């Protein structure tokens, strides 16, 4: 962010988002603690501590699966975008529930060891040569460490300090955390055949998750392949009628970058398609008062000069446009940051 940092930039929508999420978690945990003992065979009642471990663990896995669905859902259907705006809160809460699971395991299985509990954690569960009884705790520990790093670096300071590409790469390790969590569950709780609900949760969740991510990747691939890719001179970006109402026309360029062309009233403007914050797709943002609002985190940029309104200082590149009949021509060279480009009037051609 370009203004003074705050611990959390609370807004009404963030408070509602967090309240709904925390209430949902509370309801899940209460329902699990109440219903799980009833589904077990006679003579296999769980102690309260083991029940809590299972409740926190399954809740953390469910939350991780859900938080990973938000990105592709928002890419495929704009109605899911409100879930995306506060996804970092979702991630931090997921890490907190995973921490509750880890602490419950630590307190119940390792706290009474004659060894130091931390040494005991690594000294047990070492049957690496046998798939039956394969150690599953290291997978869970590695997944938790990744979630901890991601939660600890979720503040905007880290985005600025590490730079958006490094921060984004770091946070993509959440996919590795999911893979490790699946391994942890698959070789842990999954091995008890009396547990009927877990396979449904893990199989169903991973199938939906993989399908959503591949569908979103395919959509991106199709968008990138669309349109002209001539990087020399002016390129034909599309017709006036191709610019969607209230959204941008995304034009991929030969160098891998992309430009978003917007129509506001009877005028057209073009800016970079990538938000300076986290490289969100500005072409999918809404227009308000001459600014485009990034669909990911609400950063705003004026269409005329690509600058965020004061007091913010983020900037994105503007591009030159011209019209030939109703064909929009785009100069693929980005202007220096802060360059004002007057919107081109459509006149009668856009009607």
């Amino acid at each position, binding site marked *: *962010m*370009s203004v*003074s*940092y*705050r*611990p959390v930039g609370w807004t009404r929508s963030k408070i509602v988002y967090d309240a709904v999420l925390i209430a949902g978690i509370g309801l899940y945990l209460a329902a699990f603690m109440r219903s799980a003992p009833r589904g077990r*065979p*006679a*003579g*296999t009642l769980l102690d309260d501590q083991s029940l809590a471990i299972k409740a926190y663990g399954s809740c953390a896995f469910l939350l991780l699966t859900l938080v990973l669905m938000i990105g592709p859902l928002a890419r495929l259907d704009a109605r899911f975008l409100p879930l995306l705006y506060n996804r970092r809160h979702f991630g931090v809460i997921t890490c907190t529930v995973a921490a509750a699971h880890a602490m419950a395991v630590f307190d119940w299985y390792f706290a009474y060891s004659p060894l130091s509990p*931390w*040494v005991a*954690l*690594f*000294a047990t569960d070492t049957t690496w040569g046998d*798939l*039956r009884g394969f150690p599953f705790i290291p997978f869970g520990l590695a997944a938790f460490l990744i979630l*901890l*790093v991601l939660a*600890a670096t979720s*503040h905007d*300071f*880290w985005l600025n*300090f*590490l*730079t*958006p*590409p490094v921060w984004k*790469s770091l946070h*993509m390790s959440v*996919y590795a955390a*999911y893979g490790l969590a699946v*391994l942890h569950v*698959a*070789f842990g709780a*999954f*091995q*008890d*055949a009396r547990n009927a609900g877990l*396979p449904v949760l893990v*199989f169903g969740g*991973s199938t939906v998750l*993989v399908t959503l*991510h*591949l569908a979103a*990747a395919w959509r*991106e*691939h199709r968008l*990138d392949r669309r349109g002209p890719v001539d990087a020399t001179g002016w390129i034909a970006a599309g017709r006036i009628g191709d610019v969607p109402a209230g959204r941008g026309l995304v034009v991929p360029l030969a*160098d*891998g970058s992309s430009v978003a062309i917007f129509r506001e009233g009877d005028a057209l403007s073009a800016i970079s398609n*990538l*938000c*300076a914050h986290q*490289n969100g797709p500005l072409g999918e943002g809404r227009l308000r008062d001459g600014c485009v609002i990034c669909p990911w985190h609400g950063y705003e940029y004026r269409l005329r000069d690509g600058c965020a309104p004061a007091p913010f200082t*983020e*900037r*994105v590149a503007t591009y030159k446009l011209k019209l030939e009949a109703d064909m929009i021509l785009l100069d693929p060279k*980005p202007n220096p*940051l802060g360059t004002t480009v007057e919107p081109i009037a459509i006149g009668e051609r856009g009607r």
Partner: protein
Amino acid sequence: MAAPAIIVALGQAWLLAGLAAGVAFLLFGLDRRDAAARGAYGFRPLLLPGLVLLWPLVLWRWLEPPSPSRQPSLRRSHKRAHALLWLGLACILPAILATALALRRHDIPVPASVRIDTGPSERDE
């Protein structure tokens, strides 16, 4: 020293080094490195866990000469990595789950119920 004890000792050393580097950065590096942090103190405790965990990265960024104006990215290079990662997961996850399903234990013995009798003195009361 046994391997578990070495792992724990290395972890403790990492966290101690991170604590020293993190506190030093908060006291001497943050204001110079990021203008938006000047005069803002409430958010600083939130940074400490990340500073402790990622201290080599923090030192590297702290000691690196600051670039006067960073150009925003024009390309979203992680899109390709995202597609490749999920193609990989689409192959690996079913294999893991199928293996785990094949290994499931159906023969876990259920212990017989044991009746807990109350003692004669309690029964007499």
